[in-house]
């Protein structure tokens, strides 16, 4: 039997994965925050759906689902992303007077 890799018979060379030591940390940093929208009794449901569409570029159906989650469960995790992007989105939601916060992402 011929080992196409050219290794000596009876030995198997296990390839050592090339790991970027910063890769995992970088991914965590980039996706470590969640934008959360909170329920309130005053914002109109079609308005909230519209705002989600505008801020995140979502379809009406997706925006509507998140709006209902906010309404029924009190909160909805909207996106998971870097702190800078999350901050940008929270600021955009607050310009529309929606209750939104940045929360640390779950591990």
């Amino acid at each position: 039997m011929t080992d196409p890799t050219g290794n000596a018979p009876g030995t198997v060379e296990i390839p050592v994965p090339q790991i970027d030591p910063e890769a995992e940390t970088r991914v965590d940093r980039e996706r470590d925050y969640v934008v959360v929208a909170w329920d309130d009794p005053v914002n109109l449901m079609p308005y909230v759906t519209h705002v989600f569409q505008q801020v995140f570029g979502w379809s009406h159906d997706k925006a509507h689902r998140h709006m209902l989650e906010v309404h029924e469960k009190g909160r909805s995790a909207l996106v998971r992303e870097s702190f800078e992007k999350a901050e940008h989105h929270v600021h955009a939601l607050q310009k529309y007077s929606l209750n939104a916060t940045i929360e640390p992402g779950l591990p």
Partner: protein
Amino acid sequence: MRLLGKDAEGTSWLLSQDECGLLVSMLRLPPGPRSAPRLSLAARKLQALGGVELADELEAHRASTRRRLQDLLEHAPGADTVEGDAPGRLLRLSGTDFELFLQVLNDVRLAAWERLGHPNPPEPPDDLSTGTPEFRFWFELVVASRVQGFLLSAAFPG
């Protein structure tokens, strides 16, 4: 108020003189105080470190959008040739201005709601009297809600 047309540039609306006057009057009233936006722990830490003063920036944004909408309404050209309508105003809104209009209406709604003590549900009592101090805020809340709902349903039907 009626949607006349919608294209890639924005939307065109016909307002009666009364509707336009009512909106301008509401925007001229001093806005009620708004509570600071809810901030996450991370955002509060960022602010403590000298980051952006989010609340101040939001207040500046609200003031400028209110001025922008007031300017658009006050300078909307007359429109008296639309069949079946009394003389009115033609309000042309870019996509951005449409969003600002929604934001301003929501600011009016929320400021009124806060001044009323956060009623839940936000609906006026049956025995509301025009002579009470709360009347102005209920009026603003109801009118801004109606206009906001109308704008959304007309511009994005279905």
